[in-house]
Every structure is written in structure tokens, then in C-alpha cells.
């Protein structure tokens, strides 16, 4: 274990092993931590991707529609529903979804993960409810951000100019207002994705999913410090990677950012 070495050396040795992919052995289960994390990532990463896809697919059309219909009853309705979505905790939504779709209708399993061994559909089926429970509150936030960002760009001179040149309201909206409103939307998306990777602890407990969040929870409860330590580093690392990807996306979305150095 190297306990005769000074703490600093032990720390360096640990970082070195970590970098080489040796995450140590779990105190509780006596198996390599990398194996545990690998098993769990097979649940958490698809869950996070599914949730973020659902959230985006719902939020952007809804947000744009609310902006386009600003001040009309439809806008007020959307804002009302999203306000409920923002206020509703995801675990509560998860319990409601289970009561309706699992207990009442028996369409989806209430808990657990069928695994990818029985086919992709089986796996997706057990992840759909938790993904929805995660996605809906996030979609509510995202659609409100989208709405205010699109409203802002709709008031810009270039949109008015486009309309003055004879472009229809829909074309002006989709060709000019929406692309320019994407920067704040992508920022929020990046934050949400990091949250989804690390913050699914509660949802994974509600649905008894063997994901990274539950592993973290169990490891903390059982004082399996090596697992906690590895997970914290990995999750922190993944947040950095996601933030970096978001920065790259900014450049892709906004040509001005690409040419700033040259200008």
C-alpha cells in the first residue's frame, strides 16, 4: 500500500496509476474499480444521452413556438406548463411516471435495468421512464431560455431588415433569429449534460438503476473511498470535457468567434 511513503509521493503514485487506467480495487466488492465503473457507465451514459436528446427535442421547438406566439394564449399556456416543469423535482415526476406507466398501465418496468444483452429495445425500454423524468424538468428550463433568447434576437435590426427585404415571418425566424439565439441555449445544454452525468443519483435510486450515480451513493454510504475518489475525478474530468466541447460548439455556431484572432 506504500504507507511508509510520504503523503505527497503516495498522491503522485495514485495519480500515476490513475493516468495509466489502474483505478485500484473496491474495498466493498474486492473487484477492480474500473470494472465497476465500466458496468455502471453502460447505464448512465445512455441514460444521460437519452435524457439530453429528449430534453432538446422538446425544448427547442416549444421555446421557439412560444417566442413566435409571444403574448398570445398559446405562449401563456406554454409558459405556465414550463413553470410547473421548473418547479417540479425530477424524483417526484419519476414516482408519478412509475405510478401511471408501470403500476397502472404496466407498459414499462418500474425499476431496474434489463441490460443490453436482451437487445437494444429492451435496454431502451427500461431507460425511457427515468430519461423522461430527467428530461422534462430540464426541457422546461431549456425552453424558457430558448424563448427569451429568440425573443431577444427577434428584436434585432438584422431580423427587421430581413423582414423589410420581404422575408416571411417564419423564414426570418428560422433563418435569422433562431441560429443567433443558439449560444445561450448551448451553454445551458452543456451545464445540463454535466448535471445529468453526475446528478442522476436520486433518479437512479427511484428507479433502482445500477448507474454511476447509485454507485457513488452506495460507495459513500459504505465508505468505499477508493470508488468515491475515482468517481469524483472521472466526473470532474467529464465536466471539463463537456465544457470544452461546448466552447468548440460556440465557434461552430458563431463565425465571429472563429475569426476574432484574425480580426
Amino acid at each position, binding site marked *: 500500500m506504500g504507507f511508509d511513503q510520504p503523503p505527497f509521493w503516495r498522491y503522485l503514485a495514485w495519480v500515476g496509476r490513475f493516468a495509466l487506467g489502474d483505478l485500484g480495487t473496491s474495498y466493498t466488492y474486492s473487484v477492480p474499480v474500473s470494472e465497476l465503473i465500466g458496468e455502471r457507465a453502460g447505464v448512465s451514459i445512455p441514460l444521460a444521452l437519452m435524457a439530453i436528446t429528449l430534453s432538446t427535442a422538446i425544448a427547442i421547438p416549444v421555446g421557439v413556438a412560444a417566442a413566435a406566439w409571444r403574448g398570445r394564449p398559446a405562449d401563456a399556456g406554454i409558459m405556465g406548463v414550463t413553470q410547473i416543469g421548473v418547479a417540479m423535482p425530477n424524483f417526484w415526476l419519476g414516482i408519478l411516471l412509475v405510478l401511471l406507466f408501470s403500476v397502472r398501465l*404496466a407498459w414499462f418496468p*418500474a*425499476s431496474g435495468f434489463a441490460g443490453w444483452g436482451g437487445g437494444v429495445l429492451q435496454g431502451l425500454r427500461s431507460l425511457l421512464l427515468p430519461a423522461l423524468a430527467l428530461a422534462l424538468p430540464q426541457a422546461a428550463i431549456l425552453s424558457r431560455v430558448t424563448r427569451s433568447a429568440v425573443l431577444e434576437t427577434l428584436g434585432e435590426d438584422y431580423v427587421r431588415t430581413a423582414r423589410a427585404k420581404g422575408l416571411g415571418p417564419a423564414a426570418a425566424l428560422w433563418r435569422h433569429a433562431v441560429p443567433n439565439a443558439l449560444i445561450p441555449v448551448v451553454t445551458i445544454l452543456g451545464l445540463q449534460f454535466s448535471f445529468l452525468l453526475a446528478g442522476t443519483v436520486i433518479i437512479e435510486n*427511484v428507479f*433502482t438503476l445500477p448507474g454511476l450515480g*447509485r454507485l457513488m451513493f452506495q460507495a459513500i*454510504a*459504505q465508505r468505499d473511498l477508493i470508488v468515491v475518489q475515482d468517481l469524483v475525478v472521472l466526473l470532474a474530468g467529464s465536466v471539463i470535457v463537456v465544457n470544452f466541447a461546448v466552447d468548440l460548439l460556440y465557434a461552430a455556431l458563431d463565425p465571429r468567434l472563429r475569426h476574432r484572432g484574425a480580426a
Partner: protein
Amino acid sequence: MRRILAAALLLLPAGAHAKDTLSVGMVLEPPHLDVTAGAAAAIREVTYANIYEGLTRIDAKGDIKPALAESWTVSPDGKTYTFKLRANAVFHDGTKFDCGVVKFSYDRAAAADSVNAQKPLFAAIAKTECPDPQTTVVTLSQPTASFLFNMGWGDAVMISPKSAATNKTNPVGTGPFRFKAWAKGDRVELVRNPDYWGEKAKLSAVTFRFVADPTAATAAMLAGDLDAFPLFPAPEALDQFKADKRFTVDVGSTAGKIIMSLNEAKKPFDDLRVRRALAYAIDRKQYIDGVLSGFGEPIGSHYMPGDAGYVDLVGAYPYEPARARALLAEAGIKPGFAMTITLPPPGYARKGGEVIAAMLEQVGITAKLAPMEWAQWLDIVFKQYNYDATLIAHVEPRDLGIYARESYYYNYKNPEYRALYEKYLAATEPAAQADLLGQLQRKLSADEPNVFLSTLPKIGVWNAKLRGMWENAPVPANDLTSVYWAE
């Protein structure tokens, strides 16, 4: 549209056809799967009778039945047991079962470096011999009335020398099910053993799933994700299951005794007056109603109502807070005295802690509650003896012997009790045994080393079409060897 419908249909569960698999819910996940190297009941709930077998086994009624020993004879002095072994038993890894395995298993469990959680069970064994491969002769240093019962415990199962070191992660036994996979934190999967020596299991595969949250457990049963939850964690949801024809609700008994253990090595719990005061301060009926939803019987000693030699001592410490206060004052305990109660995860402890703290408040004791996970509890309370009081169910059957141990976590060290217990072990006449059992219980009640609260009920919920589930749990186990689905 039609394509969408077709896809939706694919998402639905497969239609009903003859089912021969089972998924069983459990609250706790075993720390590992070697039943000879850990005290956790969850290990037995997965492996006992399913994966591992001993020479004898304990059946659903708590009776001793032959397992890997086909038959046995006992010498007149009660010291020599001759077992005739099954000729065709084979371990899952192909190792043949014979007397060498028996000798290995018992010697290993009794060895000085043994990590067996019930090592004292093997203390009476003087030697294990093999006159021929199909016969084992066990000689005891003194007659032990409960020897055959003891050898039916999970801790006394037969272990192949080849797999002894790896049983924690890849258990190998002689049982009707083989270990298939363990997804940590989620499930353990077993499959039928086609080469089993006896009647083969009717189920082709079994999955044990770990669902700790009572709400999630209820939902998983209602949604049909789980077929059975033999130790169901949400007694408050039972009425819902009773009203539903799809389920069988079973309230049975276990060998579990819920007690508030006190650390006698710590002041003031070394003082008999303080321990008695605590016993007077706790209303067992209120505990049972509030915490166990009324399922449970009060106990007055560390012994199950209904077991041979039981004496009813429930009335020894009625609920009398005034008497408790007087005893505390006599022992010099001032009102406002603070103690800590450590609470392992089960509801009888976590919910029970709240109820008991409120009762202790009435007699001027401030109880701080310290909830702990199992691993932590096993380490701090059970190994290090570093606690004031804890709520715990002892699920081992007929375990009066734990109060005669040299060293155990509640530090009860009483020479009179030990002498009595020695006498009980040596007694061969049933009448003398019963009399000594009664004396042992009375001694415990008088000394009140721990506050004896209630029996641990076994509340099980399972699919109404399931047959052969254990209604009671005389030993911690989910014996699935004769479980099947009715048409």
C-alpha cells in the same frame, strides 16, 4: 402510423407463456457470496440451499433434514456422529463430493485462523475422520444437543477445497442452482444445475434483485418487475397487496429477535439498574404497533416464542416509566443524560430508533440517533465494540450460546450464565434440556444484558401463482429448490 404501433408493441412485455424463471427482491445486497466467511444475512438469503448445502439442512418448518448426508447414527454417549454421505453429489466445478470435503470444510471452519462468523458452532468438534470416502465420523469433545441443527446452518456448508479461496465472488457449491453472474449493486443471477444429485429445481433461472427503497420495492412488485419479495420492506403498503388478487401476502415468523443491545463495557451500561431502567422505559407494544405495523410478538429474553423450552418472560419488565426514572436516579443518572443509539439500515432500527428515543425522553434520557450503513455498523459496533446502544435483529435460530461467548459485541461476561450454558450443552435428556433452557432465559431476563423487544416478523409478498415459497424463515434463507409456477 402502423410502423409506430408495431414498434410500440415490440416495447411491450412478451405475452404470457409457461414461466419457469423467477425474480426475487431483496433489500440488502450481500457484501460477498461466501457463506462461511461473513455474518451478513443477505449472503444466506442468496446462497443457502440454492448454491451451498451442508450435511444436514433446515427446512421451512425449522426441522432438521438430511442433505449431503443421506443418513446418520449417533453413539449412545452422544459424542460420536457417523454420517453416510451422498454418493452422487458433485460440486458445480466438477469436484466430487466425498468425506475429504467434509473434513476440509469442518477443519477449515474450526481452524485458529478461521473467518467463519459462527466459529463457536464448530468448537465442540474434536476430530473429523474418514473411514471410507462415503462415511464421515465426527467426534465431539462433549455431547452437544444441537449439533445436527448447527450443521444445517449456512455457516456449516460444504466447501470444495478447489474453490474455497474464490467463493466470495464466484460461489461453488453442490446445490440445485449454479451461480451465473453478479452485477454489483443490482442483481445476482443463478441458473438451474442440470447435474444436481437430488430432485432438480423446477425453476430454470433465478434473479435476485437489490431494491433498498420501500417505495421502489412497492412499485416494482405492483408493476410485475419482481415476482416475489420474501422480506418486504414496506409493511404500510400491505393492505394494498392484500386487496389485490394478483398477490399473496404472507406474514410468518423468523428466528429473528429484535433487541436493543447495550455495551456493558461502557459506563453506565455496566450497571444492572440502568439496564433494567431502560427495559422499564420502553413500551414494547407501542414499538411493535408503530414500527412493525403490529406484526411481531413481544419477547422477554433472547428466545423465540414457540421454540422448544420457551418460557414467557414478557411480563418481567412492564412499561413503567416512573420505575425507570427511580432506578436511574438510584444509579446516579441525572435527567438529561445523553446516549447514542446506532441504527443499521432496516426499518426496525431506523424507524424504531425514533420511537425509542421518544420513549427514553420520557424518563429523562436524551438519545442521539446515529444511522449507519451495514459495512460501517459491522465494523464499528460488531468488530470494534465502539458504541453505547444499537437496535439489531439477531436472526440466527436458538442462539442463547452467544451470551456465553468469551468476547462478543455487547460485552456480557457472566460466569454463572456460562456455567449454566455448559450444563445445557452437556444435557442429553430432553426434560433436563428444557429445564436448563428455561433457566438460561430467566438468567438473561434477570440480568437484562440487552433490552429484548420483539420477534422479527417475516412479511412476504409474492405472485399468487407462485408455489413453494417459505412462509416462515427459521433460518435466513430464500430456499427456492421447490418453488414453481402454478398454471
